[in-house]
């Protein structure tokens, strides 16, 4: 029988959660009174400094997918969650800090597709906007919020997704990126502080890592655990998406300078690594708690961390921790809704249908775009059952479509053609989609890893293709498309900075 979390909660816990939600709405209302143009709504008037960038970057990237996904991996496999899955991402953040930010600040871009449009023209920009839109749909976040609601209240997760996700939607509609960033800041403190308080209490209840080491298999302490090497590489390669991440780009454009972003990333890496380890440790401690009989044997790996923390915390702190869990996800949902809404209106509707749209019209339509992305995200949210698998699919589509053309645009000084951008982006996206369809048609589901695997024999040797390996095919084909397009197409003359930023 599963642990009923609300049985461990008092009225103080529910009051803390209610106060948190009310405060988020107040911030949205307060900021909405200061907004006067599209730049202020969409990129906060380029006013962000290092501390607010740290808060919004850390909280935006780290939602329930990390809290539950990484702790799930820690619960099932051990320290590989940190060494194999989380740690490679820091390398990409360092690359972004030192190589990417200044390049992206050379022009007054407003979005990731702006960058593509400048180098390769409108069609490639639209492909980039489509990939960014798919990536930014808040399905993962809404699914996570629903799951938290179900675990806490034992009710339909869709109600929780509507309730908590609805609050994030409302304050984002009211105050745009600044409301998003200010709420992110409160959410950042909540999610970090509550986790830092919870883990020592869990360690105390379970008996620390001495108990974990005595009672869990030795593979839990191997950096690659029992996970296939190619799967670890596939997970690690999702870190490539950091270099082309639309919410990250939006924050680079919203910063006061490239230096502020670089400093924010370097401090952020320290906090991310600490957060990741606490979550990994929490997953392993939850597994030990199952072994000790503190948690029931049928505890789901996805929610094991949440359950063991709620078990360990006293009244009041439980509500604060659950507010921190909600904060982790709401800070992700608001940011990606804004990105996806901007993709629909600023990156697709404006250049294709209404190039002369003024600020008021762009702001108004972007709000409708935000609502659209929230609605689509909600529909998708309850189709996928595995958090990590969904995350890998979304980041694969983004990386396959925009990684090669953006990196080539920013760093390749040689000849670049419109056709190269188009073939690289369209080729990468289509390869990733076809690969996923093929693996789902020809392969079979694997319950242990929650994925699809197509196993066959090639030249007498067994071969297993996982759906997560899509990036290994789509990225080389995207690069091939770029090379072919460069050979066949005509050279693009990049427009001056002001024109590109218009």
């Amino acid at each position: 029988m599963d642990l009923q979390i609300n049985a461990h909660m008092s009225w103080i816990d529910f009051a803390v959660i209610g106060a948190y939600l009310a405060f988020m709405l107040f911030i949205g209302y307060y900021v909405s009174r200061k907004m006067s143009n599209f730049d202020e709504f969409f990129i906060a008037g380029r006013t962000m400094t290092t501390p607010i960038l740290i808060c919004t970057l850390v909280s935006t990237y780290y939602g329930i997918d990390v809290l539950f996904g990484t702790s799930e991996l820690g619960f099932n496999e051990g320290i590989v969650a940190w060494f194999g899955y989380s740690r490679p991402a820091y390398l990409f953040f360092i690359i972004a800090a030192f190589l990417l930010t200044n390049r992206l600040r050379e022009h007054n871009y407003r979005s990731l597709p702006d960058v593509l449009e400048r180098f390769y023209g409108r069609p490639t920009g639209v492909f980039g906007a489509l990939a960014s839109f798919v990536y930014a749909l808040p399905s993962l976040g809404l699914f996570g919020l629903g799951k938290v609601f179900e675990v806490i209240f034992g009710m339909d997760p869709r109600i929780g997704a509507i309730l908590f996700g609805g609050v994030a939607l409302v304050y984002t509609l009211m105050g745009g990126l600044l409301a998003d960033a200010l709420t992110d800041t409160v959410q950042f403190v909540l999610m970090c502080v509550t986790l830092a308080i919870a883990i020592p209490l869990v360690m105390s209840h379970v008996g620390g890592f001495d108990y974990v080491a005595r009672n869990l298999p030795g593979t839990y302490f191997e950096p690659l655990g029992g996970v296939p090497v190619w799967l670890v590489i596939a997970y690690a390669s999702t870190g490539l998406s950091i270099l082309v991440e639309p919410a990250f780009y939006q924050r680079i454009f919203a910063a006061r300078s490239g230096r502020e972003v670089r400093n924010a990333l370097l401090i952020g890496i320290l906090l991310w690594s600490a957060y990741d380890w606490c979550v990994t440790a929490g997953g392993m401690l939850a597994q030990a708690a199952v072994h000790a009989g503190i948690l029931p044997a049928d505890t789901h790996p996805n929610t094991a961390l949440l359950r063991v923390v709620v078990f360990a915390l006293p009244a009041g702190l439980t509500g604060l921790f659950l507010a921190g869990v909600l904060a982790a996800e709401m800070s992700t949902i608001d940011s990606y809704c804004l990105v996806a809404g901007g993709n629909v209106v600023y990156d697709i509707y404006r250049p294709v249908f209404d190039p002369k749209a003024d600020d008021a019209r762009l702001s108004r339509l972007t709000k409708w775009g935000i609502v659209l992305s929230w609605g689509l995200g909600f529909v998708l949210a309850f189709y996928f059952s595995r958090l990590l698998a969904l995350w890998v699919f979304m980041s694969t589509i983004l990386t396959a479509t925009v990684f090669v053309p953006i990196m080539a645009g920013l760093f390749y000084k040689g000849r670049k053609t419109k056709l190269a951008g188009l073939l690289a982006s369209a080729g990468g996206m289509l390869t990733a989609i076809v690969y996923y369809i093929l693996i789902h048609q020809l392969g079979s589901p694997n319950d242990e890893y929650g994925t699809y695997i197509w196993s066959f024999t090639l030249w007498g040797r067994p071969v297993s293709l996982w759906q997560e390996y899509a990036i290994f095919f789509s990225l080389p084909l995207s690069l091939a498309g770029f090379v072919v397009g460069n050979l066949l197409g005509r050279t693009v003359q990049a427009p001056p900075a002001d024109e590109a930023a218009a």
Partner: protein
Amino acid sequence: MNRWDLFTWVAIVVLFVGSIAVFVAFLMDLGGILRKISKD
């Protein structure tokens, strides 16, 4: 103390102290950010 316990304690301190320090720095910047955003 197990070395993984020690590693976890270091992460806890970094997370707790770091997040509070960043929040204090944010509060010091907040006035300036709000002043730069124009009013209707």
